[in-house]
């Protein structure tokens, strides 16, 4: 395993641990402003869509919004099923199937 990979993992550990230890270990009597709590609630959606969109709309680098783009169709399928019934695993498996089918047809 490369040094860069170790550095990546150790850095991720340090950042994660400091956040988790923040109040438990260092912050006796600190309070969390409610506006910040609300802002944190937006983080998962923001980060996930920021990763998904470029990969889905342009898997090869150029914009491809057609129905023959398996990445785009698969992403929409995964999102739609998960949104409808909340079952993550079902959505993931169904989207893999659709993606595989489109790849195979292409």
């Amino acid at each position: 395993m490369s040094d860069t990979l170790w550095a990546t993992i150790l850095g991720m550990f340090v950042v994660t641990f400091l956040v988790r230890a923040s109040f438990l270990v260092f912050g006796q009597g600190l309070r969390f402003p409610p506006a910040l709590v609300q802002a944190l609630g937006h983080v998962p959606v923001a980060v996930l869509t920021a990763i998904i969109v470029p990969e889905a709309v342009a898997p090869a680098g150029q914009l491809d919004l057609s129905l023959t783009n398996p990445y785009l169709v698969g992403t929409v399928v995964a999102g739609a099923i998960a949104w409808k019934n909340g079952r993550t695993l079902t959505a993931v498996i169904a989207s893999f199937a659709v993606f595989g089918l489109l790849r195979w047809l292409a």
Partner: protein
Amino acid sequence: MQSKLPVALAGARDTLPLAVGAMPFGVIFGTLAVAAGLPPIAAIAMSAIVFAGSAQFISLALIGGGAALPVIWLTTGIVNLRHALYSATLQPVARRWTLPWRLLTAFWLTDECFAVLERRRQTAGDADALPYYLGSALFFYLNWLSWTAVGTLLSQQMPGLAALGLDFAMIGTFAAMAAPQLTALTPVAVALTAGSVAWQAHSLPYKLGLVLAALAGVLVGVMRDYRKRRMATAAP
């Protein structure tokens, strides 16, 4: 100490449904990590040392995309910031615990174990919260490690998984994780902003566009929350 064991076991038992829920993610993480080119030991080390599901997934996308180390660390921090909230919530309970226990509690702090402990505190109060939490967290930790390892084994059994389009598996999984949260206009606005900024900025080096897009999305969310609060207080 003997009398603490049943409490710890109860903690583990109450964590079981969440551990089952984490199982597919552990397997998928291990599989994707190996398919993304990480040695199995690195995937398992990440689960053992970092122990933060969503940040681990996102780091794979970043490592695969050639992101700079500071970008990976910064993103990890942003994604895990919510844990500071849990840390703050548990702080009054943990005040009586010695430092080593508080360090261990912090290391094992996850969405799942926090939720389990909070539910118990509502019914049983803070008595024996430490052994209960330790039982819950140790079980959840071993669960995550085991399923990560299973995923790496699976991936090794099927070389060429990456060529089959495992790069899609990651974004398909992310889409399934994000979509259920789009239940109101504000999260939709957050997603639209983050998505379009990410597309506009996708050619920036080191995946900086991702950080920019995430911040823009959160900013729009904060602005909408602020306006909603203003309107609520201004209403007659």
